[in-house]
């Protein structure tokens, strides 16, 4: 399977490949990228996968707004398909953006856990 030729909403070329400009869609975008890190998925499969590993059900409108932004930034790309449910896959820029985002979140989690352990003791 190869990328389809439909022009995305904006070209990701030359843009900062990070989720910094996603605002309140940064959370859904991280979940989508994490799901696609496993392999290409269409909208419904993405919803189910995210629900399973994160316990969050992405509403259809939110999912597609995040998908269109990710595609616009060149972080994911549509995969050619004969099915009406078009799958998406991670791009190299998307993998890098996810790696950076998760590293940021891990740093925050590490600090929070360390401070909790110091002030409140281990659970």
């Amino acid at each position, binding site marked *: 399977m190869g990328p389809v030729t439909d022009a995305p909403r904006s070209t990701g070329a030359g843009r900062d490949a990070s989720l910094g400009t996603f605002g309140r869609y940064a959370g859904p975008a991280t979940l989508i990228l994490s799901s696609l890190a496993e392999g290409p998925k269409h909208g419904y499969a993405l*919803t189910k996968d995210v629900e399973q590993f994160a316990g969050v059900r992405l509403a*259809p409108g939110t999912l*597609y707004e995040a998908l*269109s932004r990710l595609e616009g930034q060149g972080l994911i790309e549509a995969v050619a398909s004969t099915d009406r*449910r078009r799958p998406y896959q991670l791009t190299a820029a998307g993998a890098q953006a996810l790696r950076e985002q998760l590293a940021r979140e891990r740093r925050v989690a590490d600090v929070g856990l360390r401070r909790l352990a110091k002030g409140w003791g281990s659970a």
Partner: protein
Amino acid sequence: MTAVADREVRRLLRWYPRSWRVRYGEEFAELLRADIDERPADLRRTADVIRNGLLARLTAAGLSGHELAPEEQIRAGLATAACALIVFAAFGMAMLAQLATGWQRASAGSATTAAGTVGMAAAVTILGAAGLAAAVPVCWQLAAAARRRDRRFAVPVSLVLGCAALLIIGTRHFQNAWPGTGGMGPEHHLVPGGLAAFGWASTLSVSSYWAHPALLGRFPAAELAWMALSPAGWIGLGTGLVMVTRRLDLASSQVLRYLSHLAALATAAAALFLACASAWLLDHGAASGEAFRPGLVDAGELVAMALSLIAAVRAASGIWHGLLALPSPRRRPSAQIPL
């Protein structure tokens, strides 16, 4: 899949703009069908789709922070700015026509009102000049399209010409009833009398008479018909211009930059107009003469203009972001001095 669910999917899809539906509509419909199968009645899903559909519409209009590709962002921003500024100009002309009538008959009686009125006239002049300057490259492209027998512009250009003709013919007919006719003399002409009368007649529908049906009933039937019909002319003119702008082939970055700067200038002029109009409204009662006293309809016009200006500023900001993202024009390689 029931017919009811199918109808629900079609209904939800309508919240999104056509360009979005062309790209994502089919796959999004599939996801919605699956979601409706699992949870037939879900108000949160409906609210989510409405919110994101409206956001997609704002994005398509170049009004959201979520940027499109630079050229598309500029094109969408220009179309939205043109539409917002036409709405602004229509209400602005209605307001200025009232003040020009008062100016014709008496002095303003208050420095704030006088300065505000002159400022509004200057702002409308800048707006008009920017509009004419923007029309030059647009007309050039339309002429080129006509030579190529490009039919994409046939409908929007017909709409613009038809509505412009309606507004000009109707206005020419009714402008003789302008209340400023027979004023005090040339020194009392804030704007040329013909233009003031044109502004007044083309915006007759912006009136507090709608709230007084008994008074409205005394108007001649033709004038009432014109008051009801002329807003359609303005709406058609704005719609046609937006359609033309969205179909323009703005491949030249110089033309894009030229139009973008004009949009910024026109938006600044609209901001000046709004500031002057606000000063006049806040000066309430200080001015002499009935035409200088603001009423409820003027406050309503100010609100409508403020909303239009917000849209124009958002569009101008999107245009600016698009301009910054545009690749720089190619420069000739400079001669290098051998070291």
